[in-house]
């Protein structure tokens, strides 16, 4: 069997988790699914680079993280303020279905710098270990834990005393 077949079938099983990660990174549903589409296309195009002994999920998540960073750069919106503003617009048109608490959380997440946000998405949402996140992001484990710690402090401050 082709590696590409194995990757494609692995991606089918991974799709729900990939969408969850994309939602945590990119925020609104439409942006997140645009990101998922880019990730699927890249993963299929690069399926020859995937080694079957490597975990497919980490490989795909790394593609997702890089695609998200590319997207931020391409839009010239690497500044987190822009992402926050975009999230604010979406709140006005499509976000009404979200419970108030989740809306607050989404805004707080969107306001995080990308470095912090991706660590929250990988570790706290996707459940990667610190080591796995460090390997994926190609940074030392200490960098992951310090970013996570600062991200937590920011989120807790945003969310008030109830979190």
């Amino acid at each position, binding site marked *: 069997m082709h590696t590409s077949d194995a990757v494609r079938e692995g991606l089918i099983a991974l*799709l729900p988790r990939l969408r969850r990660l994309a939602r945590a990174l990119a925020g609104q549903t439409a942006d997140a699914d645009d990101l998922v589409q880019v990730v699927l296309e890249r993963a299929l195009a690069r399926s020859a680079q995937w080694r079957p002994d490597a975990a497919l999920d980490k490989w795909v998540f790394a593609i997702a993280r890089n695609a998200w960073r590319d997207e931020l750069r391409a839009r010239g919106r690497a500044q987190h303020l822009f992402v926050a503003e975009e999230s604010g617009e979406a709140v006005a048109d499509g976000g009404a279905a979200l419970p108030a608490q989740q809306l607050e959380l989404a805004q707080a997440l969107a306001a995080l710098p990308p470095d912090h946000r991706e660590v929250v998405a990988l570790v706290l*949402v996707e459940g990667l270990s610190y080591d796995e996140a460090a390997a994926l992001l190609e940074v030392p484990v200490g960098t992951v*834990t310090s970013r996570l710690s600062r991200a937590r402090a920011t989120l807790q401050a945003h969310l008030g005393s109830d979190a």
Partner: protein
Amino acid sequence: MNPIDDDTLQAYVDGALDATEAARVDAALARDEVLASRVRRMRALNAQLRAAFDPVLDEPVPAHLSALLQPQGESTVPLTVHAGGRAANVSRRRVPRRWLMPGAALAASVALLAAGLWWWRAGDDMVRMRNGESYAAGVLDHALNHALASEPDARAPVAIGLSFRTAEGNICRSFTIRTPPSRAGLACHTAEGWELPVLELSAPARGGELRQAASDLPPAVQVAIDARLRGEVFDARQERAARADRWR
């Protein structure tokens, strides 16, 4: 004794400490209310994040995304054909393959759903659908509930492979259906029954083999196992104990 620093406390909440360190934090939490309240706040944030994003797992996958992953769509995907010497593989006749996934994508695509329904009918009632998810039924359900890999039965229509507990805490078992068309899959126990995240056509087990080696499983099944497996697969004793406990 060293005080508990921020990194340690965070690692405790995220389950990243070894047992000794975790016990040290437990002891400190019992006598330090300030520390305990910081742990509660961190846990609350973790729970809030999960509550916000985990429901995405149950959403239907948009059809345009699952369509990208259909084998038939291969011609529209650039570079799936490997450069250099692998072109011969492309003209090789493809074994028709059907896949299952947690119902969302199937439900999202009428065409796929139709193909799926055809498949269930051809599949001698071993699969039932419920709310867009596929579950084991009939002989398959019975085998998953009762058969043990440690007590293989060469004549049984279903052979059980690996059993293990996932990070989420439920038990999954891989299996092979011997009656044609041979299929292999993974079943995970839920309150609704044995959910089937993946079921694949497979090459029939070679003569006399009672237990299909993991390496013989179709890649999609292997990937599904790898995605869920944390720790060890059950040995014979654990498998028996799990059955006695009704796979909870």
